[in-house]
């Protein structure tokens, strides 16, 4: 893992939908080359935070820097340049159903590089080979399984060799074996190419197997309740919300107002 300075810096981020504050004054940094996991229970704002970082949504307050550029102050054209340097795997893979897998992967290459068609074809074959989908270039997304779609989504996200890759719930809806295979692939890409990975997940297997650092969000706290190495946090944290999550414990809550 590369240990250079932060490639992503979030400072005082607050996200509101109407009167509902989802994230309140959140700050953290992601270092170059690390696998950084944003984790937490359902509805704690993990995906919201990811959308804020990549600039799909605008924060109510706070600043987000990507490679030293404050993305909250950029217009659409400038933000597009930032987007060309990052890759994103969406929860549903978001492959274009009317295009083959090969066309999905070649789309950014054809649009942004000006490479000749045979070079693009070579790169597409290489990317599909990297995610173990060699030969599937003429298949349509509807002909692939969930795990294959995720891998095709990673191949598309990696098409322009981005320095940063964002993955939203990569293991969601996958069986444990496919999920573990995906973890291996993510680790291989991180170690091989040095891509910084920001992953949103609540899969403990994934978190312990591949992450270098995590932040844990909490719905009631509306922000970060733990940050660091998940293996240490599991044993050393004093916060029961953190240890309960890592140890899959159910916290009993008082049923106020109920008579039995």
């Amino acid at each position, binding site marked *: 893992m590369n240990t250079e300075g932060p490639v992503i810096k979030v400072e005082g981020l607050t996200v509101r939908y109407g009167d509902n504050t989802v994230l309140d004054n959140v700050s953290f940094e992601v270092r170059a080359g690390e696998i950084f996991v944003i984790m937490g229970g359902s509805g704690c704002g993990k995906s919201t935070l990811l959308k804020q970082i990549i600039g799909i949504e605008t924060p109510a307050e706070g600043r987000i820097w990507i490679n030293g550029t404050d993305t909250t102050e950029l217009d659409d054209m400038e933000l597009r340049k930032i987007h060309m340097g990052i890759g994103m795997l969406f929860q549903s893979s978001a492959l274009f159903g*009317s295009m083959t897998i090969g066309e999905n992967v070649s789309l950014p290459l054809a649009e942004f590089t000006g490479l000749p068609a045979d070079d693009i074809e070579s790169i597409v074959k290489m990317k599909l080979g990297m995610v173990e989908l060699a030969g*599937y270039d003429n298949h349509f997304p509807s002909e692939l399984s969930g795990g294959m779609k995720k891998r095709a989504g990673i191949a598309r996200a990696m098409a322009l060799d981005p320095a940063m890759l964002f993955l939203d719930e990569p293991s969601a809806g996958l069986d444990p074996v496919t999920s573990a295979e995906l973890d291996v692939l993510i680790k291989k890409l991180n*170690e091989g190419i040095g891509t910084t990975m920001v992953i949103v997940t609540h899969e403990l297997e994934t978190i312990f197997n591949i992450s270098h650092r995590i932040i844990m969000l909490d719905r009631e706290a509306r922000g970060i309740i733990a940050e660091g190495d998940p293996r240490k946090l599991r044993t050393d944290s004093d916060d029961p919300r953190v240890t309960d999550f890592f140890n899959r414990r159910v916290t009993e809550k008082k049923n106020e107002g109920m008579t039995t």
Partner: protein
Amino acid sequence: MSAETPYTIEGTNGGDVTLVLSGRISLDIFGDLSSRIDSIFDSHTPAKLTVDLAGVDYLDSSGALFLVRLEDEAQRRSVPFNLSGMSKEKMGILSLIDRQSLSAPSLATKERPMSIVEQLGAGTVSALQDIYEVVSFSGELFYDLVYSAAHLKKVRWNDVVSYMKKVGVDGLPIVGLISFLLGLIMAFMSSLQLKQFGANIYVASLVAVAMVRELGPIMTAIIVAGRSGSAFAAEIGTMKVNEEVDALTTMGFSPMQFLAIPKVIASLLVVPVLTVFSSIFAIMGGLIVGVLGLDLTIYTYIQQTMKAIEIFDITSGLIKSFVFAMAISAIGCQRGFKVRGGADAVGNATTSAVVASIFLIIVIDSTFAIILHYI
């Protein structure tokens, strides 16, 4: 493409040659580097080629692909090839490339373009299949409508009311506006001719008969097909894609009863009403031209309109609109249920619903014209 290529070549022509790479070997210069592979071999004819990567600060997968291509070319030319100055990171990137995948044949071959004869055959088969599916769906729908008539409590009346609002109330402004303008145009254009014969008063008859018997039902049906038929197809199609229709089935509901029947009943109830409004708005459009351009009084225009329209015209127009409503809602639902795949399939179903509905409207209208001629 970079102006300066980040390599130098050391060594003697025909002997050991070293390609010294430096800086960033990435996607930015991949095309430039790849296009120079042949010239590297042709101009230096190396007996042995070494690629020195010690000065490379950044190597991405495209850069690694260039090295693989270079090695493949060296092997093709039987030139011994080796890499030097490799770090752990660079080895890692190279190890990610699955060489077999670069020449792996596609597991699904692209369909070859069909000849005109094949296209004609495929189109005919597809059209016949489509007719079969529409007829089959119509039978099923008819059965469910009869069942609903016999079990009125099982009809989802809340949904019926909601669709009546969407199809009828929400559609009224656009139906009204278009019909009003249509009446205005018809009256204006016909007045130019009728004026010459001093038959101004017949402008009212022309607008009234044309709208009540033919154009009112057709225009309303076409607008409803564009607004609501497409919406039915898109709604059911999206539910199919999201497996919501499957969920209904597994929960014990009939998707036809749950999704199609409320839409069909709502359409059958409101399209005839919209048709009446359409004729009224068109007559109002004609009235404006009659009063302002032909010196007719409002009273005279309305009297002439009443004289021109017979109960038979109104009844036949309403029956037509009822049949149009049936066709539009049925086609919309059928196209929605037919969706397989993703977003593009929903788009195709929506387009197909509108096109097929308009085609059916014209066919039904022609059939009515023939039948009404002999009555």
